């Protein structure tokens, strides 16, 4: 027999000014199953809570209804009070008579009646509540970091330094990401590699970090605290344990004319190569598509010259399985290539380059050793045009968002150009200068005032080549929309930052959502900026949206903080309001018919197939099984279940039907 306690709160006058609280209490006392009913000025205050605790003990209550504000406000408070009184906290319900009643209705009988109805509804519900225990899940204290750019490096180091194990997976042969390609960084103009390389080395040397380069995530299964990840380690054709990084193989390789990806095609590399001199690990890989041996079956010159005998032509891809508790996605971004722009010649003019190519050109270790040169003829460009927002903020042809980093790096490019070509002129076509950030605006002012960058507010309609010059046609919206025509030697397009290649597949492997631009989506744009909708999977850096270095690093440290929190105890506690499939005695085992209609509707892939077998191991029945670690409690499966075999704690069919019944059959 249920013994329910009803506690009507006046909330000062917030409720009692409109709702006749004593009357509600009086009526509630007569509801079947109600053993105790009381009204009080402030139920959430200390004495109010004591009232609840004492009543539970004194009247041996089996459930309580607190009729007060929204459960979104004080449900945890009263659940704690229940627990204090020795009552299971999930035997507490709240009837919302403030936000949904006293604040929105006029004083009167109909309002009182509504309050009474709402209390009756919750009394009927709480009678059917089950005592629930919060769910405990073990946590594997190893983190997987996908992507070895600056965000991945930061996240990995922070997690490792907190004392946890980290597995880092990088698609390229070396970690470093886009930051290792940059020349100098804004707004301080310090050299990108000089600040990044030490951190890359730290990653390689940290005993807590296991680094897999030239590797990709093959599959991910499991849930927060307990992910099983398969990593495909692509064959480098090198025995990494033997290679001493002497680089002899790379100098002897007869293939020398393969476009270098790291230099964005502005330089060449051999078929066996290290992407750049500071690479971590400093182990070459053989590019099998271009290697003479793999193409023709003959060559093996590298093997001949390799002193430690580390070349392995027969090496195969290796699948490594790791168990991790949390995953950080740090896969970064990509930039639109110049061939995206028909009005700028579809990438057919060699002297129209993108911002990343300019970075390589300006880098002391780049293809021109830091000299600014036209790719077509190697001449020093005396007039250079930078086009900001090339593709960004252009819903008609490009992408509608702002790529965020271009204003700043374009200002930096203009400064670097001026530092290298003293008698040259840099023109910058821009829409707006977006320089919000510490010392950012000062930096763009510096480009304009000290380095004489010619900022022209307007867009470029077309660029064409004529007699070796690039004719840039644009407009100057601040000068009466005059058409501006510049005969430039070189053009740099600040092309839009876009989601990295393969982002979509990775999102599907990890079951995290992504937006229409294929950037990964955060769980909440403001309050959960580094979490994804899948518990235990986090985001850092430009894989989420275009971000500059400080932002990426900050997000990465944020992720490391989140993961360290998760790893701070060996078990996870979760709310038990999740779905379950009923179980009954043999020979039926469950009313579930095994139709698995529930499987595709589950957004969390929480529904698995469970086989019931007899002792001989023969299959009797296949049932749906809801993994409590994965279920987030949306209940979509409950509504779709044709045999009504799935139910959800906290919102069971019994509870919901009796609520409706109680509401209307007064």
């Amino acid at each position, binding site marked *: 027999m249920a013994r329910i306690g009803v506690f009507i709160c006046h909330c000062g006058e917030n409720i009692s000014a409109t709702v006749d609280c004593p009357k509600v209490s009086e009526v509630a006392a007569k509801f079947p199953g109600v053993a105790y009913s009381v009204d009080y000025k402030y139920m959430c205050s200390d004495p109010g809570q004591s009232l609840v605790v004492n009543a539970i003990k004194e009247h041996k209550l089996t459930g309580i209804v607190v009729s007060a504000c929204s459960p979104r406000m004080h449900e945890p408070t009263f659940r704690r009070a229940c627990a204090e009184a020795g009552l299971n906290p999930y035997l507490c319900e709240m009837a919302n008579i403030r936000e949904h009643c006293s604040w929105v209705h006029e004083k009167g009988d109909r309002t009182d009646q509504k309050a009474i109805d709402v209390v009756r509804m919750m009394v009927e519900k709480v009678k059917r509540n089950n005592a629930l225990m919060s769910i405990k899940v073990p946590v594997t204290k190893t983190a997987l970091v996908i992507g070895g750019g600056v965000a991945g490096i930061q996240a990995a180091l922070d997690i490792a330094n907190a004392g946890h194990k980290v597995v880092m997976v990088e698609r390229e042969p070396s970690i470093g990401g886009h930051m290792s390609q940059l020349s100098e960084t804004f707004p301080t103009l310090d050299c990108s590699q000089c600040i990044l390389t030490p951190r890359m080395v730290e990653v390689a040397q940290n005993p807590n970090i296991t680094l897999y380069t030239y590797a990709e995530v093959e599959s991910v299964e499991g849930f927060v605290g307990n992910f099983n990840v398969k990593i495909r380690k692509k064959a480098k054709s090198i025995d990494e344990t033997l290679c001493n990084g002497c680089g002899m193989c790379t100098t002897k390789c007869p293939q020398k004319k393969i476009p270098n990806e790291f230099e964005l095609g502005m330089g060449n590399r051999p078929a066996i190569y290290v992407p750049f001199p500071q690479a971590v690990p400093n182990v070459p890989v053989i590019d099998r598509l271009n290697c003479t041996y793999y193409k023709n079956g003959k060559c093996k010159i590298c093997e001949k010259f390799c002193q430690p005998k580390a070349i392995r032509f027969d090496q195969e891809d290796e699948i490594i399985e790791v168990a991790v508790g949390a995953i950080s996605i740090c896969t970064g971004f990509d930039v639109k290539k110049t061939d995206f722009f*028909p*009005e700028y*010649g*579809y990438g*057919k003019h060699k002297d129209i380059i993108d911002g990343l190519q300019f970075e390589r050109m300006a880098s002391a270790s780049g293809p021109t050793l830091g000299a600014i040169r036209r790719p077509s003829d190697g001449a020093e460009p005396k007039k250079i045009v930078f086009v900001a927002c090339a593709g960004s903020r252009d819903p008609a042809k490009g992408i509608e968002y702002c790529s965020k980093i271009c204003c700043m790096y374009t200002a930096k490019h203009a400064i670097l150009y001026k530092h290298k070509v003293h008698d040259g002129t840099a023109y910058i076509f821009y829409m707006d200068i977006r320089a919000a950030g510490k010392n950012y605006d000062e930096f763009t002012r510096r480009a304009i005032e000290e380095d004489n960058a010619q900022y022209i507010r307007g867009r470029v309609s*077309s660029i*064409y*080549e*004529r007699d070796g010059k690039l*004719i840039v046609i644009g407009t100057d919206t601040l000068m009466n929309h005059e058409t501006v025509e510049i005969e430039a030697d070189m053009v740099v397009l600040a092309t839009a930052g876009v989601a990295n290649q393969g982002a979509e597949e990775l999102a599907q492997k990890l079951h995290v959502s992504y937006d229409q631009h294929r950037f990964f989506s955060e769980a909440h744009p403001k309050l959960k900026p580094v979490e994804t909708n899948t518990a235990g999977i986090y985001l850092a850096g430009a894989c989420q949206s275009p971000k500059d270095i400080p932002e990426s690093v900050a997000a990465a440290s944020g992720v490391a903080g989140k993961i360290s929190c998760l790893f701070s105890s060996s078990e996870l506690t979760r709310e038990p309001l999740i779905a379950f499939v009923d179980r009954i005695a043999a020979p039926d085992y469950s009313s579930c018919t095994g139709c698995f209609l529930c499987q595709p509707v589950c957004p969390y892939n929480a529904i698995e197939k469970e086989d019931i077998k007899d002792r001989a191991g023969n299959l009797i029945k296949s049932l749906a099984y809801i993994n409590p670690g994965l279920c987030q409690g949306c209940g979509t499966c409950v509504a779709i279940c044709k045999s009504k075999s799935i139910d959800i704690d906290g919102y069971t069919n019994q509870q919901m039907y009796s609520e409706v019944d109680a509401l209307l059959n007064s």
Partner: protein
Amino acid sequence: MKLGFYPGCSLEGASREYNESVQAVAEKLGIELVSIPDWNCCGATAAHNLDKELSLSLPARNLALAEEAGLTELVVPCAACYSRFTVTQHELLHDNAMHKKVNEIIGKEYKGTLRILNVIQFIEEYIIDKLEDNMKFEINKKVACYYGCLLVRPNKILNFDRTEDPQTMDVVMKKLGADSIDWAFKTECCGAGFSVSFTEAVGRLSGKIIEDASHRGAEALVVACPMCHSNLDMRRPAMDKYNGKKIDTPVIYITQAIGLALGIDRKKLGLNRHFVPVKLDNFKPYVKKEVVVENTQIMEEI
């Protein structure tokens, strides 16, 4: 082979040679072009600036008439007419209320079953495959294909070729044996709208086009729009004034180029009607062979 045909005002007036060349080529290749009975003005260029309903009703009447005549495909050589027709079709098929209203206005039922072809699409679908068997000459000249504004815009509605760097005419010209050059002004404005009211602007805009083409060594400009043609051909004095030099690169219609390759009489193609004399001659006799067209890949991408 029977196709619907809408000449429009230009082809009956200032650009008679365009009509003559289209007809001559069609006749030579056994294609029958049937004019829409009782056709009216398409509404270009003024109607859509003044009255939306009128600008849709004028082309809609023509389209409905063509449907009534049992035509399924309509060749519209004039780029302005083509633009108005396709825009009308798009608007009416995407706006039920307007569709109903226009039907009331024209007193006919426009169903939207008609396929509208511009001259390039017409060539691609019905002519290009017949060239090999019928070509007498190769147009062994350097030419600049000029598309103008209306043929490829608005891209979302027409879904034809690449807006900024179209290729379809170049493919046709290469098939005819011409060296079609890559140049900068393929789709720049020629100033047609100001041909009469502000000839100086035409001198500047068209002047740049003709100058760039001749600077890059083009022996002729190839066009597919009567406005482009009349501007570039007729307003040469204004262009020469702007450029400060006399440029006598002729401007021909793509159908005239095809006609020349087919060995059709120059007069029949209307080549005598141009202001800038078309001196192109000494064509190489055509010998049937496997022609490798470089740009087919680009075509497929489109």
